[in-house]
């Protein structure tokens, strides 16, 4: 327990030192509500940055959603993902997903338990600019829990700190922009909700070159 807490403190401190991360709450404020934070995915460190930037009270009730295939391989990763981050582990192998092991089911269960979530609707790291098309998990989750707020979070610069294939990070300044929360409306279908979520996230991105 103590080791987990200490590791969490070290990780948060390290992330803030390396990236000088600044959380800008432009569309909402850090209230202790059940929320699903959804963000653009450019680096393995994405959820760590969001998680580390939340105020401590919110951080203890916010769980990142992570891929079981990657994180359960190896003792250190297991420790980090289960004890330190308290992540919701989902099975990402497409196709063979038996009933009850559905990712949305796991995420909804976490929300039932009163926790907030951090998810990445693009599904995989985007190595280019802009956003990849969203996967539908976020839509299905919103349908199961229509009362929960979905907060877009734009992560800036983290993809440049340690791009794919590099070992040493460049100490650039990263920023997190927390935007206007959205809720699924009764008339929303998959396309319209995903479009709204995508637009909400793109709105937070700074003007590109």
């Amino acid at each position, binding site marked *: 327990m103590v080791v987990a807490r200490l590791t969490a403190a070290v990780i948060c401190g390290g992330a803030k030192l390396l990236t*000088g991360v*600044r959380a800008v709450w432009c569309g909402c404020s850090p209230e202790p509500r059940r929320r699903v934070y959804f963000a653009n995915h450019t680096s393995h460190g994405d959820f760590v940055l969001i998680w580390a930037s939340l105020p401590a009270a919110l951080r203890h009730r916010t769980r990142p959603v992570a891929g079981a295939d990657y994180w359960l391989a190896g003792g250190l990763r297991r420790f980090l993902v289960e004890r330190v981050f308290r992540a919701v582990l989902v099975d990402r192998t497409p196709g063979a997903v038996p009933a009850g092991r559905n990712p949305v089911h796991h995420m909804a269960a976490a929300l039932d338990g009163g926790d907030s979530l951090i998810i990445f609707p693009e599904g995989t790291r985007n*190595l280019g600019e802009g956003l990849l098309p969203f996967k539908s998990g976020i839509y299905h989750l919103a349908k199961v829990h229509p009362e929960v707020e979905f907060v877009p979070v734009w992560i800036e*610069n983290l993809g*440049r700190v340690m*791009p*794919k294939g*590099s070992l*040493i990070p*460049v*100490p*650039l*300044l*990263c920023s997190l922009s927390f935007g206007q929360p959205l809720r699924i409306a009764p008339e929303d279908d998959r396309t319209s909700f995903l479009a709204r979520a995508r637009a909400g996230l793109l709105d937070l991105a*700074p*003007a*590109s*070159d």
Partner: protein
Amino acid sequence: MTAQQTLVAVFAGVFATLLVASAIAALLRWRLAVGAASATIDNLDARIKAWWVMIGCLAVAFWIGPAGVIGLFAFISFQSMREFISLTHTRRGDHRALLWSFFFFLPLQYFLIGIDWYGLFSILIPVYAFLLLPITSALGEDTTRFLERAAKVQWGLMICVYCLSHVPALMTLEIPDYEGRNALLVVFLVLTVQSSDVFQYVWGKLLGQRRLSRNISPSKTVEGLVGGVLTSTAAGVALWWMTPFLPWQAALVALAINVLGFFGGFVLSAIKRDRGVKDWGHMIEGHGGMLDRVDSISFSAPIFFHIVRYWWVP
């Protein structure tokens, strides 16, 4: 007075000025109606507090000695370059160039100043980094906006590392009859140029009418600029006794570095304007980022270094 005593006296004077400034700010706040808020006074308070911290850090660095000044400016360069590169888009192909910039060229530049190897520290970045970094970027096989990206990295290194490193480089100059007093040259430069910023702000608030440049600096005025540069040049002349210059020489030098200091802020504002931001960062409350504070020094330091070197070092 020995150099050490002069330094202590100068810093005492600066702290006394800060006390007066804090008192004036407190007075202005007290005269405000109870409960009323004023963004200007809040900003003034934040700026003065930040000045206390910055002058304090400078004092500690001088107390430690030349190593302290080098260490302080290495940190300032590091933070400034972080802010500069963060705001200018580079791509994955530039990752190695950035690593070289942060972890090789920056420490090497300051190390060379530490060992006083003028022949190399004066050309390391304009020649070696300029040639070698585009090579690493080209090897990254990404040609999208290649020239732009290579130029951005070089600019970052030049402004944030090369130019700023000329401040501690002043400590290496061998000026006859001025041995051991080089720290005062650094103080002269920093005080004159930074006071120019402060006076431009004050005169701008008091008398500002005609806008200087709508596109680049919406809040700067002609009155602020002229008043600020003239006042800070006068301040530079008033400090002639701690430099190797005669009063008329101090006036010309101070004028040169103040004008350059203004243009340093101006050019970097043009870059910020293009990115659509007002500040380079948020490290220093009331001022913005580190680079917002040292942009004027970055333009004036190399010129000051070379003026002194050309005219006063045989």
